[in-house]
């Protein structure tokens, strides 16, 4: 760390009298000392010689995949690496204060008042023990020395500003009493309390449903326009960047790959990495190349399916209303097709998927698979049909037993079905590993030695080892980076082609679903809202909910994004706020 403050804060190409930047980063390098033993102790350079500037009122989107160093950068802007083992070098100046040389006292005064930050997970980012209002007031008082009353009034004021209805009443609610979107609004309100000049938002919408995401992004844009604060938005999602940012900085492995206006980068990326990245983004407005004529032969039919989770309790005198996770859903899966099931969180799509493979027993309704009515079959009778219906799970971490080699995990279904020939098992598994893009030598490795995408490939291999007729994929790519996502989607498509699989693809991501599916079913509150072939559904949705969903999807196109935002605003005015309050 250098002791001399930077003399020239604006290197780079000469521009016509740029305003004094509110934020400037010069040669930022962040290293984490390696933890662990012997050879593994090498330091990890998370950010490498990063430099950028942000004009007052500007909006910069920092985009990158996981491990690109984008979050470490965001934290460094507030000096949050202080007191941790991380080594930070380079210069950061925020509103005239040099973060790298300031005393702890100065930094503390800066944080929250001139530069504020909003985090990814709004629930864990708020102290569960204190009311939202208290937490906002606390920050306000810490920086202004205001009295209790004044601070509380300020809290109500900012909560109202971020669109919390009845802010005066809600001010005393604790974070868990808020829905996800409201929590993020509250966090933004906290950021607003002292009217900062810069707001850093680290993946502020990643944990939110698509409709809520749209609202939060709109809010950020509005606030920026109203207060003139600058915005640093860290995200993995080009759609989000397009919605909010003026400038884009693309990061890879700690370095800036490309930096420029959003409109230019999103439409005409120059760096090869940016190109790959953007091309990997599934576009909701891009139709999937048409395939052969759809089959009409029904492989799986679901009729009036219900799944109610009982309110827990043995001796309860009065039964609580059950949670109706799936509430009368009917659909059919045709042989050889790829059916997409879309819905927001809580729509019942995962429950439905699990019932399709008999991991859950329906409360009522019928499931007919390949002509056989599976309803209420005992486990023993069910087992033969199980091998025909397999599943790929969402979380590539949780779906593999960490204590068994991946080969064993893939081989387990064979063994469970009585295969005893060790040679043949190994051969089958190895072939399969190769088929999903892994190496045969991976057989004896443990899951933690693999990346997320690789683990998902292992999961797919395991689902295929019994040569099933139907594979239900439950959010198979939502935990993956965008490039990996594209690879896995391609793999699924290829395998389907090769093996003649029938695929059910469950996802919250309408764009992904469009890339994969022949037909799409939209779910909401446990019911099927709309069901149509993909083309029709995306171009001409009939149900208003489908339309809302489609409108909310961020598109990596700033112009389109602006249009959409205007549309949403009008509709919102008409509809009032439609954010559902989760319990």
């Amino acid at each position: 760390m250098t002791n001399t403050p930077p003399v020239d804060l604006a290197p780079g190409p000469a521009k016509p009298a740029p305003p004094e930047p509110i934020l400037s980063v010069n040669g930022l390098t962040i290293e984490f000392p390696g933890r662990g033993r012997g050879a593994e102790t090498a330091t990890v350079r998370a950010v490498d010689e990063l430099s950028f500037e942000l004009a007052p009122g500007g909006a910069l989107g920092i985009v990158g995949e996981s491990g690109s160093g984008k979050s470490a950068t965001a934290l460094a802007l507030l000096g949050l690496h202080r007191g941790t083992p991380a080594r930070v070098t380079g210069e950061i100046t925020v509103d005239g204060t040099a973060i790298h040389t300031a005393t702890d006292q100065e930094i503390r005064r800066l944080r929250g008042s001139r530069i504020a930050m909003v985090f990814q997970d709004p629930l864990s980012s708020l102290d569960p023990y204190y009311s939202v209002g208290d937490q906002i007031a606390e920050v306000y008082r810490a920086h202004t020395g205001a009295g209790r009353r004044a601070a509380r009034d300020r809290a109500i004021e900012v909560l109202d500003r971020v669109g919390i209805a009845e802010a005066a009443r809600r001010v005393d609610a604790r974070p868990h009493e808020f829905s996800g979107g409201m929590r993020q609004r509250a966090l933004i309100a906290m950021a607003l309390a002292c009217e900062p000049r810069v707001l850093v938002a680290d993946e502020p919408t990643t944990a939110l449903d698509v409709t809520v995401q749209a609202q939060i992004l709109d809010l950020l844009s509005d606030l920026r326009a109203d207060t003139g604060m600058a915005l640093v938005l860290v995200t993995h999602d080009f759609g989000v960047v397009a919605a909010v940012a003026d400038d884009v900085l693309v990061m890879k492995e700690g370095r800036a790959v490309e930096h420029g206006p959003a409109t230019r980068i999103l439409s005409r990326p120059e760096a090869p990495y940016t190109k790959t990245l953007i091309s990997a983004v599934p576009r909701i407005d891009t139709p999937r190349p048409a395939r052969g004529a759809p089959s009409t032969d029904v492989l799986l039919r679901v009729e009036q399916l219900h799944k109610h989770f009982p309110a827990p309790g043995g001796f309860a005198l009065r039964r609580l209303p059950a949670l109706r996770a799936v509430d009368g859903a009917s659909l059919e899966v045709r042989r050889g097709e790829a059916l997409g099931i879309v819905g927001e969180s809580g729509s019942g799509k995962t429950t439905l998927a699990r019932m399709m493979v008999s991991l859950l027993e329906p409360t009522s309704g019928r499931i007919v698979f390949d002509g056989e009515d599976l309803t209420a079959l005992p486990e023993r009778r069910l087992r033969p049909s199980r091998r025909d219906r397999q599943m790929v799970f969402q979380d590539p971490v949780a779906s593999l037993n960490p204590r068994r080699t991946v080969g064993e995990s893939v081989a387990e279904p064979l063994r469970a079905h009585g295969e005893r020939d060790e040679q043949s098992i190994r051969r089958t598994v190895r072939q399969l590993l190769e088929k999903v893009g892994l190496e045969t030598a991976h057989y004896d490795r443990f899951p933690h030695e693999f990346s997320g995408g690789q683990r998902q490939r292992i999961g797919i291999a395991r689902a295929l080892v019994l040569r099933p007729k139907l594979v239900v994929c439950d959010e198979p790519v939502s935990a993956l980076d965008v490039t990996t996502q594209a690879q896995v989607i391609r793999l699924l498509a290829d395998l389907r082609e090769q093996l003649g699989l029938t695929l059910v693809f469950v996802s919250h991501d309408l764009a992904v679903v469009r890339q994969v599916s022949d037909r799409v079913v939209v779910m909401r509150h446990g019911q099927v809202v709309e069901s149509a072939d993909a083309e029709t559904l995306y171009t001409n949705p009939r149900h208003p909910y489908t339309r809302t969903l489609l409108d909310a999807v961020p598109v990596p196109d700033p112009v389109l994004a602006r249009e959409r935002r205007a549309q949403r605003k009008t509709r919102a005015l008409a509809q009032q706020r439609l954010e559902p309050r989760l319990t």
Partner: protein
Amino acid sequence: MRSLPMATFLLRRLLGAIVTLLVLSVIVYGLFYLLPTDPARMICGPRCSPQDVAAVSRAYGLDQPIYVQYWHFLAAIVAGRDYSTGPSTVHCGAPCFGYSFETGQSVDSLLLSALPVTASLTLGGAVLWTTFGVGAGIASALRRGRLADKTLTGLVLASTALPPFVLALFLILLFCAYLQWLPFPNYVSIGDDPVQWAQSLILPWATLALLQAANYARLTRTSVLETLNEDHIRTARAYGLSERRIVARHALRGALTPLVSLLAVDVGPVLGGAVFTESVFGLPGLGKLLVGSVATVDLPVVGAVALLAGAFVILANVAADLLYVAIDPRASIR
């Protein structure tokens, strides 16, 4: 996570507790029935003829089948029971645990006289062990990796390796015999003389504290470190709150919450009688009552203390759950 209404939860836990206590009482009764010792002979004394023993057996209803005796025992708890004192009859109001075979005292009064002692021991001990344990844990966490932390960790582990009876005896020997800083422990009730009460309990408290504080220190340390790693602490830092405020207001609150539940869970068994501590210090509490009555096959007392001790453990667990729900806004009752 959906939550149950409090009343339903309580009712359910209560029913569960009653079932558990019933099973527990059946086991205690059954076991003592299997004992080779005949309570009637113990009541009658060593020089009794078989006829005398039979008469005593009849007088105390010990000649009835075990299930009848058990039923009377249960019924008395719920509805009270009439007892013949010889010249007249007394009613023992519910919850009536009967009369001690050994002293002829009403078991209820024995429990009532033992309970304050055990309660004094437990509550004082709990205050002490919590204070020390939590204090040490916090200090250790905030000075992580330094000498103070390592010393504390070592001491904490060492104290878990001490059997309570050895620890208690050493404390007596050290403070009463060698140093003579304290008089030999002799329990005085708080109503009689609060100063002597406290004085008589210092060493028992210290014993419990030394045995338990270790656990709390370790958990506090872990919990504080963990909470300091939580996102909302990062938020507090990102909003410029002072480090002291962050630790005092945000980290400790979250870190200490689970300990409240743990405290409730730990207090339960001690309330049921810290057998070794009470024995060594001669505290006339439930634990001592229990050991004494087991030795003399004083079934009414054994049954009552066992039930009470079991009830404390169960209630403590319920209390722990309730506290957890009350304190942690994120929790819901399952």
